């Protein structure tokens, strides 16, 4: 685990630039993405049990749109926004990973 040859880079801390090594964790930090209310992402890997909406449906914020089964719980997932369903990217019985876009909405009335 010798890391003697890691090159020095510039790290800006409060307007001063420091010559130093950057850590792997620092390089791999997740870039910030603000919450996108027009897309519903799976919060956990699991299986789609039921889908209550189809493309074109009008939904209200907080309305239940699908059931995602994970860790022995049937999670009833709510719509993040008012609007219309543009796209449904999963079918019943699909196994989905974490962070997959399940439903896309058009928030405009």
């Amino acid at each position, binding site marked *: 685990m010798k890391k003697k040859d890691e090159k020095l880079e510039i790290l800006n801390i409060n307007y001063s630039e420091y010559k130093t090594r950057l850590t792997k964790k620092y390089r791999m930090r*997740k870039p910030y993405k603000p919450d996108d209310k027009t897309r519903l992402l799976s919060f956990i890997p699991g299986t789609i049990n039921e889908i209550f909406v189809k493309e074109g449906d009008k939904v209200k914020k907080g309305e239940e749109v699908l059931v995602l089964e994970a860790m022995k719980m049937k999670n009833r997932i709510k719509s993040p926004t008012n609007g219309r369903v543009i796209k449904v990217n999963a079918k019943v019985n699909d196994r989905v990973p974490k962070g997959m876009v399940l439903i896309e909405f058009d928030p405009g009335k």
Partner: protein
Amino acid sequence: MPIDQKIRELQERRKKILLGGGEKAIQKQKAMGKGTARERIMILLDEGSFSEYDMFVEHEARDFDMDKKSLPSDGVIIGTGTIEGAPIAIFAQDFTVAGGSLGLMHSRKITKIMDHALKMRIPLIGINDSGGARIQEGVNSLAGYGEIFFRNTLSSGVIPQISVILGPCAGGAVYSPALTDFVFVVQNISKMFITGPEVIKTVLGEEISMEDLGGAKVHSEITGNAHFYAETEDECFAKIKELVSYIPWNNERKARNMEPAEPSQECNIENIVPTDPTLPYDVKDVIRSVTDKSEFFEIQRHWARNMVIGFGRINGATVGFVANQPLELAGVLDVDSSDKAARFIRYCDAFNIPIITLVDLPGYLPGIDQEHAGVIRHGAKVLYAYSEASVPKITVILRKAYGGGYIAMGSRHLRADFVFAWPGAEIAVMGPEGAANIIFRKEIMASDDPDATRKAKVEEYKTKFANPYVAAAKGYVDAVIEPCETRRLLIHAIEVSGNKAVSLPRKKHGIPPF
């Protein structure tokens, strides 16, 4: 029956038990680079010092055909011995017997030796090598683990507790090492995780190998669960012996003093730290310029490398070092480095080890990911740990000490006993560039030549504030010293603070930002 026949019977019984799980199981262990439980104990402890207890303990389980199974020593070896003369209580799980799984009697043996260690006030070493709970014994296994964790907690800060992960340590079992003071891991042999890869795959559909999930490297570099990494079991045991030489047997003693010795490098301590505050250097070079024989026993070397912690000796006495590492991430404080420093400060405080803090940091690491990861909560741990520590605290400000970083790294305000600063120290509310941008923003914006004004203001701030004399004028720094004087002053500081006695306001305990 005459006595020699009785003795022969005893020897026969012993021989049977010593075979453990049998030749085949032993060969499997060896093929993986692992020793047997008793072999490991013999290598670690002083020769001939080991006294084994509960060799003939048998389980009493009856469900699931357990009554037909005979498990030698119920899969764990316990006893006492010495390491370089220091008394040690030890247990080592025997993977060759039922996979080292923990059942009721197995756990009773472990809690027996844990109780013994606490009663006798001697260090406890646990060699973990187990497949986990013995499913056949059901809730008894869970009860067993619970009793172990409780004792780990009660003994925490009273006797040193060391965990050596020389095999799988999964599920609930892994919480015992997590509660102990130091965890040793060995490449390709240690495996620690709460839920294994098979379950993760089935339940969550995520695929990962055992090594990538919870191997030695993962815990040494990423999670910070491990404190010492070794490539082989022998290297691991050598490290354990070294650690034991630095720490006291219990919290009412001081660590054993060795022969005082000079640092092996010449005093070119002045050439290590560049005067330009943006250039890096290895702070371990500074540490080695002041310790006996230039020896430094680093802890958690591969994790949160922007903070350096470890033991050294000053004139024969063990001291703990907490130092920013400008070579990594500019030596900033962040979530991981705060945790690393805070826990080590608590350890030194619990075991009467003076703390020497070397300061050179530009502050905390800015960033959304840090803020959302709770750098506030984690950073506060360092402030808490320093404030509550009642061992002698000596701080040497090598170079930068800006803003919150200055406060957190053992400042006078957190009741450091001695605060020294090198001539190149810059103790200021922030770096000159940052200060110019904020304090003089209006002037810079209103100027005809903002760049020239900014440059001038940066220079002005640098000259006026980026030095140790402003803080020294207020008594926040006790003395500005030449780097060459550092070791002499550290020796003196430790000499005069041997009987330090402070008392905290009476309370059951504080509520640190866990």
